[in-house]
């Protein structure tokens, strides 16, 4: 009997020793690097979004590591592919939590983010995302931080342009029937309504839809003063082609996606004349953004879209947050990020001055661009929404 107890005790000590050993090696590894997880749409419908974001992140990480890391720690990133599928994204978020990473970046699809952020919230891990659906920060998750405008910030800016400079009284809205599209439709309808503009056609389309003749027909029939197109990249290109084909000569307005590089590449000439509000563009009249664009092109041999900038700046936003907190602690980082103000003069990696509010929404200046001869041309620089309350010259017209 005693013999057996002894044996059990021996096993116990052995187990404990092994445990402490592995714990020791874990802390040793964690001390060497700062582990972060990136969950992006590397394939599927969001492939353009995810690959740009990933490349942007990698560029920033290489720069930061070359300069000595954050608080002396090098960043170590693991990229994984959500396949643009919410189920996969949720599983990958769980895996990131199991891996005990310091922060999670992505996913960038709103539908995926809505389900995966529950995992990072439970584990109290800061989660940076390029997703734009309004509901993401509206539900009060303190661990979520946007890297671009949410729809609640961007749509009022778009609405101001439509009601002001365009002087439109009615708008046809073509949107994609997913979380991203529906969120945008709701916000633009509300923002336009606030300015007295009526949505006269509310046209739903499918993700992956090939033939846009029917939606465009409906928009045409509504005889609206302007057409607002809010879909993902490939569908936006097809919509633009069909709009041109059916000879629509009303202004075509979008938010970010509509004038993206990939859309211009896919739509060709049909993209010319499309106008969109973009939170970020590589063509911004800003020397830091220009330098980023050059570095990106040198590294990856193509011109990034706004998602590349999101990925790049997201890592620098984390860096600024950690440096403000002064220590590598998740709770301290979350606290530091809420109410964070970073100027590009102090931290050039964020490219543009920005502030983060207590919900994790970001605010900074943005741009109104038009596609001319296959290139985004910045028509106007719009001030940050918080600074813009009185300065809405377009709305007064």
């Amino acid at each position, binding site marked *: 009997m005693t013999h057996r107890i002894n044996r059990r005790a021996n096993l116990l000590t052995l187990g404990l020793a092994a445990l402490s050993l592995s714990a020791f090696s874990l802390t040793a590894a964690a001390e060497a690097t700062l582990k972060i997880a990136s969950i992006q749409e590397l*394939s*599927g419908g969001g492939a353009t979004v995810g690959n740009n974001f990933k490349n942007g992140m990698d560029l920033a990480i290489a720069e930061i590591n070359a300069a000595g890391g954050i608080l002396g720690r090098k960043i170590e990133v693991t990229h994984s592919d959500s396949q643009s599928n919410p189920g996969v994204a949720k599983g990958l978020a769980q895996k990131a939590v199991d891996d005990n990473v310091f922060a999670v970046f992505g996913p960038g699809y709103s539908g995926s983010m809505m389900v995966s952020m529950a995992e990072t919230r439970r584990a109290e891990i800061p989660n940076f995302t390029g997703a734009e659906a309004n509901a993401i920060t509206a539900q009060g998750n303190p661990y979520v931080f946007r890297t671009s405008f949410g729809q609640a910030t961007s749509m009022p800016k778009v609405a101001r342009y439509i009601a002001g400079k365009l002087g439109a009284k009615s708008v046809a809205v073509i949107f994609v029937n997913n979380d991203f599209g529906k969120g945008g439709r709701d916000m633009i309808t509300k923002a336009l309504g606030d300015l007295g503009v009526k949505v006269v056609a509310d046209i739903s389309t499918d993700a*992956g839809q*090939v*033939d846009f*003749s029917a939606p465009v*027909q409906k928009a045409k029939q509504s005889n609206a003063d302007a057409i607002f197109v809010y879909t993902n990249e490939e569908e936006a290109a097809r919509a633009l082609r069909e709009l041109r084909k059916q000879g629509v000569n009303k202004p075509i307005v979008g938010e970010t996606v509509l004038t993206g590089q990939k859309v211009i590449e896919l739509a*060709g000439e049909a993209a010319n004349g499309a106008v969109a509000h973009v939170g970020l563009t590589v063509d911004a009249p800003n020397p830091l953004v220009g330098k980023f664009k050059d570095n990106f092109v040198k590294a990856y041999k193509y011109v990034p879209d706004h998602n590349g900038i999101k990925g790049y700046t997201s890592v620098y936003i984390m860096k600024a947050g950690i440096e403000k907190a002064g220590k590598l602690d998740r709770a301290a980082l979350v606290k530091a990020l809420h109410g964070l103000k970073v100027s590009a003069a102090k931290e050039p990696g964020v490219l543009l001055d920005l502030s983060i509010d207590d919900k994790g929404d970001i605010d900074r200046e943005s741009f109104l661009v038009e596609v001319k001869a296959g290139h985004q041309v910045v028509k106007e620089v719009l001030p940050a929404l918080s600074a813009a309350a009185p300065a809405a010259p377009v709305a007064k017209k």
Partner: protein
Amino acid sequence: MTDFLQLLFSGVATGSIYALAALGFTLLWQASGTINFAQGEFVMLPAFLMLGFAAFGLPLLPAFLATCLVASVLLGWAFKRGIADPLLRHGLMPIVVATIGLSIAMRNGVRSGYSAEAHPFPSLFPDQLLQIAGVTVTVGEIGTLVLALALVLGTQAFLARTVTGRAMQAVAQNTDSATVLGINVPRMILYTFVINAVLASATALLVTPTYLAKFDMGESLGNKAFFAAIIGGFNNSRGALLGGVIVGVCENLAAAYVSPVYKDAVALVIFMLVILFKPQGLLGRRVERKV
């Protein structure tokens, strides 16, 4: 009325694309009793081959011819030798499963081996608009329609009027008697597979400017083509054309007059109606087969 015509024409143009892909289904079935569920991917791969040749500086038409050659070997000969030959003698089910597997492999092969993003594809026709009776059409749509029609009717005529075509049909109907009649059965079946590969390449040339070259472009195309083939009649090449056009037009009209949400269900509903009331398809003949 103009709106209706516009929708109708767009539907016919989309439908002719479905019809071309459906033609591959009916052809393989008629001549060799094979159902190829990788038909959509058989269109996707040539699209990327053409992009590949174009990257080496070949203009579109030479790139297309080179692609036809590669596709004939890869999607014709190799597909027959590697998958169809060893499995067909075990009945239909193994080949159905194998081609579903093949489609997944091809899709993911292109995704991980080349790119998961959509790529623009040069159009065979000028990007020009025409106004006919108030309806706006592109030269590309008319060209696609005409070429698709020509390919379908050409294939039909080849099967019905030439000695080789008749031999191919004989092989499909009864392999044993065909052998007794002195027909070189393996060669006839190989012809079928090669023709299918060339047709798929032609489909790729016509549809990719609209669909964009993407690893999953064949998925919905393959599905719609399969429905179109069943609706039109699996053993009739003209049925493929009719089925494709019906699916294309009904989809478009339903999206405009009912709701875009139900667009994809339309093909399925017609499919079920046909299966219930005319299982041999609209133009198909009733054929007794040994099971």
